[in-house]
């Protein structure tokens, strides 16, 4: 078996293990799906009435933000899962096996990718149920969801890096949640940036969750999308490169 085929086979096996684990720990699945659903319902019915977004129904404005928010929070799962493996000693066992090193990390992010796809599908269904409509047609919606999934994959590498450094799942969660909260709530995910003070707008306009939400809206609701899509893809590619390399380095340096 060639090195690449072996690495691929190892990644498939680790992915399968992570997905099994996911389905057997219902609380993780609930965290991944129920929480975004609650956010949809809260923002659609509790807060939504008070939020005015000129030129569009709030539910159509909201759903792209919800997609970004769900996968951003979901990405923390990579840190929780890896830190649990670190604490249980499974990671040490993996490191004594003649397996491809990258498979431990790639198997984690690939399992998360599958989970995020499922979450995005569920959220789309929930969105349609509460009145969301994709004005720009199915093509635009699918392109937007594609961007969401790419972003989700990139984000999970950030939390792979975190998980490798924190051998306590609760601590990994506690570290991840504020970071994601900050990114989501200073972005245009739930409210237009224009409603924020200037200094906050400056931060909000230049961060990846905002880039994703803007690009999604352009694709779903219609309008010039090319620039926003490129910015979002740029963020995802940048995060992937930096944290892919960083996590590989952290993993390799665990031997020191």
């Amino acid at each position: 078996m060639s090195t690449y085929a072996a690495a691929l086979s190892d990644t498939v096996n680790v992915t399968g293990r992570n997905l099994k684990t996911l389905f057997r720990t219902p609380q993780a699945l609930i965290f991944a799906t129920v929480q975004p659903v609650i956010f949809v319902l809260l923002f659609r019915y509790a807060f939504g009435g008070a939020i005015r977004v000129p030129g569009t129904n709030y539910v159509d404005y909201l759903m792209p933000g919800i997609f970004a928010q769900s996968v951003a929070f979901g990405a923390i799962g990579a840190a929780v899962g890896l830190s649990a493996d670190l604490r249980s000693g499974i990671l040490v066992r993996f490191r004594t096996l003649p397996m491809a090193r990258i498979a431990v990390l790639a198997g984690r992010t690939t399992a998360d990718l599958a989970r995020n796809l499922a979450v995005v599908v569920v959220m789309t269904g929930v969105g349609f149920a509460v009145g969301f409509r994709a004005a720009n047609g199915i093509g635009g919606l699918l392109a937007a969801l594609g961007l969401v999934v790419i972003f989700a994959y990139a984000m999970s590498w950030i939390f792979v890096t975190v998980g490798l450094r924190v051998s306590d799942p609760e601590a990994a969660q506690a570290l991840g949640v504020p970071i994601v909260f900050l990114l989501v709530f200073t972005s245009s995910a739930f409210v237009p940036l224009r409603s924020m003070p200037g200094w906050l707008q400056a931060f909000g306009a230049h961060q990846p969750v905002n880039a994703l939400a803007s690009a999604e809206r352009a694709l779903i609701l219609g309008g010039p999308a090319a620039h926003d899509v490129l910015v979002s893809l740029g963020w995802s590619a940048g995060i992937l490169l930096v944290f892919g390399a960083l996590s590989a380095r952290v993993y390799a340096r665990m031997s020191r």
Partner: protein
Amino acid sequence: MSSPVIEAASLRKSFGQVTALDGLSFQVPPGSVLGLLGPNGSGKTTAVSILSTTLLPDAGRATVCGLDVVADAPHVRASIGFAGQFAAVDPNLTGRENLALIGRLSRLTRKQARIRADELLAGFGLTGAAARLARTYSGGMRRRLDVAAALLHRPPVLFLDEPTTGLDLESRLALWESIRALVRDGTTVLLTTQYLEEADALADQIVIIDSGRAVDVGTPAQLKSRFGTVVFTLGFGSEPDATRAAVALAEADGRYLPERAGTEISIRSGNGSGGLTGVLRTVTAQAPDPVTIAVHEPTLDDVFLTLTGHMPAEGGQTA
């Protein structure tokens, strides 16, 4: 002696200011068990981590099956099995799934992994629990599954880091028996333990390690005869008889230093249990025959105390 399967040469490792290994060297011949015996923090786990390729030494060299553990780490991994201090099994997989996964990651085909997993489950008495999630296992079952997981690809070399820490007596004895069976089949084992009786029961050679250095090496019997003294206790029918025997020994030639307590006298022997014949000959020449004779062999506790000046952890205590 045939060339060693495991060799550590002047291994050094520090974590910040803390020196974990301070020039540790030892060799393990093929098909034998080396017990690395030492208290918590003596460097046992650090040594095993370096040999099992999960930690890089600062200095020194180590080989497994002739392969350098740093330069040839990927090849070393194909030859070793490792079971650490914590039962590193996935609680959310069944026993069989845990083993099949490790089998696949050890480069077995799907079919080989499945067959081998079932063999090992049977060998470790886990067939009945094979389809249960590992999180429902008892501590002893998890540890057996963990050791089984180290054996999927039939590694010729096995590293066991405190394999029975925290186990009850029955589970410990069962695991000892499994380890002995592996050794009979030719596996070379490096075992760390803080239990003297475990090293005594399993190891062919014992390296006593303290503060990252080997303070002595030998077979359990060698270490005991070198550092422990055999004590004979002779019981007599009356105190005067015991006194006469004690006087006889004291006057013999100064070799014996008998101590009398009531109707019993105890004598320390410098040359092992073989000294008993001489003691009895001396006693029976001048006093009645003793009515009871007891021989107290030295324990490795005596050895350890002599070498390191402190006692290792008590059996049953967790690391």
